[in-house]
C-alpha cells in the first residue's frame, strides 16, 4: 500500500493504472493499525491478529465495508 499527497493524487494514480479507487486510510488510522498488528512482533508470543481479532481492529478504527472483510 502506498502513500499519497492527497485524494486527488490517489485518483490520478488509479486512473493511469486502470486500478479501482479503494477506501482511503488516514495516517492516524494507519498508525493505529500498525500498533495493533506489529507492537508485539519482537516478542516470543508474537503472532498476526487472526479472524475475529482482525474484524474488531478494523471496526474499532472505522474501517468497515466489503473491502475490509476477511
Amino acid at each position, binding site marked *: 500500500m502506498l502513500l*499519497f499527497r492527497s485524494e486527488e493524487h490517489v485518483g490520478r494514480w488509479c486512473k493511469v493504472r486502470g486500478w479501482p479507487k479503494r477506501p482511503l486510510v488516514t*495516517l492516524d488510522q494507519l498508525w493505529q493499525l500498525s500498533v495493533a*498488528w506489529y507492537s508485539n512482533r519482537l516478542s516470543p508470543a508474537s503472532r*498476526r491478529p487472526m479472524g475475529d481479532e482482525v474484524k474488531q481492529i478494523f471496526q474499532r478504527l472505522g474501517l468497515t465495508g466489503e473491502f475490509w472483510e476477511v
Partner: protein
Amino acid sequence: MNDDLDIRLKLFVYQTIAEDGRPPTRNRIAKALQLSLGTIGDSLTRLRGKRLLALAPDSGEIAMAPPFSAVPTPFQVHCEGKTFYANCVWDSYGIAAALHKDVVIETGCGCCGEPARLKVTGGVPEPSNWVAHFAVSARHWWDDITFT
C-alpha cells in the same frame, strides 16, 4: 517441539533485523541455532504458513519479515542511526510500532514522487493530511504479498 523451534527461529530473525537492519541468511540461522539447513527450511516454511514471513521463491531466503523488508524499498525508516526498509507505508509505521522507538520515515507520494517525511515520536505520529491507499482488499492481502 516445532512450536518451540519456530519461536526460537522467529526471535533470532527479528533480533537480527533489529540489530543489523536485515534478516539473517539460512546459513547464518543454521549456524547460530546449531541446526541443519533442512530443519531451518522446514521452520521457515511453517512461519511462512502462519504469514509471519515471506520467502524468496528462488532461494528460499527471507524476503520479508513484516514489517521489515530484506531488500531496499522506497520506504526508508531511520531509527537511532540505523536504516530499515519497510514493505509499504503501513509497514513503515509498523517498524516504529515493532521497535517501540522514535523513527523518521522517508518516502514519497505514490503518484508524483513528492518526498514525504513522517515522524513517530514517543509512540505518537506527527499529524499529517497525507493518505494511504490499499490497492488490494483485506481478504486478498496474502494472495501476492509482494504486490500488496
